[in-house]
């Protein structure tokens, strides 16, 4: 009998083997979201469209083992948040980041696109501990953005002229919610590392590290303590973000 490692538990396990190309249509991650009106600019600047392997948007992260395990986590996020975005990696060069956008630029079939930057990924993989949890936290954050597109709350979170702060708080809250639900299912799931790693990426319109971590903690409480269902948690996330 092969017991799953802790990393397998965090990332979802190796039980489901899916080549990374099948990541498309699953969904994911991040740190940033791209407004619909800016999507064309983003695509052209990354020389991609659907020419994934030839452009800066790529199906490969460079960490084969990670990709396999990540697939199952993305499936869990899709199922929990009720969204089905495409997922891929992109070379963001010197700006470590992840992106979520409403348009599906890869498979043209789902709830938008999540792109995880390979530079960010490399940074996270260098963490001395819990790199896997930090990566999942980023993915859950980006799925939070996708959810805000899917349930049309993005207009409330970022009305014209407003900063992205509340949209980011919503996404951080949902990331924490995911961690709370997972910890309910797997008691030693390192949920606390979601807050810890998110706090390290504070600054700018995302909010300070403390503000980001607070949103993660509040989301965690709704998943782990209050046992909210996803729809109720999303409403809590909206209320929380709008109160900020």
């Amino acid at each position, binding site marked *: 009998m092969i017991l799953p490692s802790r990393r397998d538990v965090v990332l979802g396990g190796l039980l489901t083997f899916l080549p990374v190309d099948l990541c498309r249509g699953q969904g994911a991650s991040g740190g940033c979201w791209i407004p619909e009106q800016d999507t064309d600019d983003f695509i052209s600047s990354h020389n991609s469209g659907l020419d994934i392997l030839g452009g800066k948007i790529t199906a490969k992260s460079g960490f084969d083992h990670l990709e396999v395990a990540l697939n199952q986590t993305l499936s869990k996020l899709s199922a929990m948040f009720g969204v089905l975005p495409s997922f891929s990696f992109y070379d963001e060069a010197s700006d470590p980041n992840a992106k979520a956008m409403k348009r599906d630029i890869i498979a043209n079939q789902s709830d938008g696109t999540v792109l995880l930057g390979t530079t960010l990924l490399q940074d996270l993989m260098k963490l*001395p*501990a819990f790199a896997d949890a930090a990566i999942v936290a980023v993915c859950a954050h980006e799925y939070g953005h996708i959810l805000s597109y899917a349930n049309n709350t993005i207009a409330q979170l970022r009305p014209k002229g407003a900063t992205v702060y509340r949209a980011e708080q919503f996404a951080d809250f949902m990331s924490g919610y995911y961690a709370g639900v997972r910890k309910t299912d797997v008691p030693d799931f390192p949920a*606390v590392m979601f*807050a*810890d790693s998110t*706090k390290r990426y504070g600054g700018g319109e995302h909010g*300070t590290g*403390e503000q980001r971590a607070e949103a993660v903690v509040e989301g*965690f409480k709704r998943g*782990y303590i209050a046992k909210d269902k996803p729809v109720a948690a999303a409403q809590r996330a909206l209320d929380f973000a709008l109160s900020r």
Partner: protein
Amino acid sequence: MRSRLANILLAALAAISVVTTAEAQVPDPQETLETIIGAFQKGGPPVAYQTLSPLVFNLVASQTSGSGYYPQIAAAGPISSTEILDSKAFPLGPMYVIRVTHAGSAFASGGPVDWFIGFNQATGKIEYLTFQTVAAGSAPTIEKGATASQTIGGIDPVKKLPKPAPTDETPQEKALRLACANFPVMCK
């Protein structure tokens, strides 16, 4: 004879019980530090100084001419956040390195401030307290100790504390321990 032995055993049990109870008295390090920094900034309230051991209390009194007020700490402004960077268990009690960020202008060299705070687990009082400005690129640790640039409390006590018992703590365990200290609600 049996009665005498029973009394000795009862006394020993009572002593163990007292120690166990006392160990539970170590307060939340971040809350305690915020409270005492607030007191140093305002010169009160008096009750805040009750968290200090007699040694530290007397040092504070002597350093501030009895006012309990440190102008350079007051100049830093209100605390905006705290983060536990390191912790270690010593025979006397736990010690923490806590990074404190202030909303206002910071200490002399600017930026956040790293505090070393140690508790006596038998009394729950602060036995050691000192702070230093944050040096670029290096996270302070208890192993390295505080630089003696600015000190409140025990005089160079870090060097005189016994070495903590070596542990087999893995990087994962350490990361989890520190994260749980900062976000305890996520570790219950």
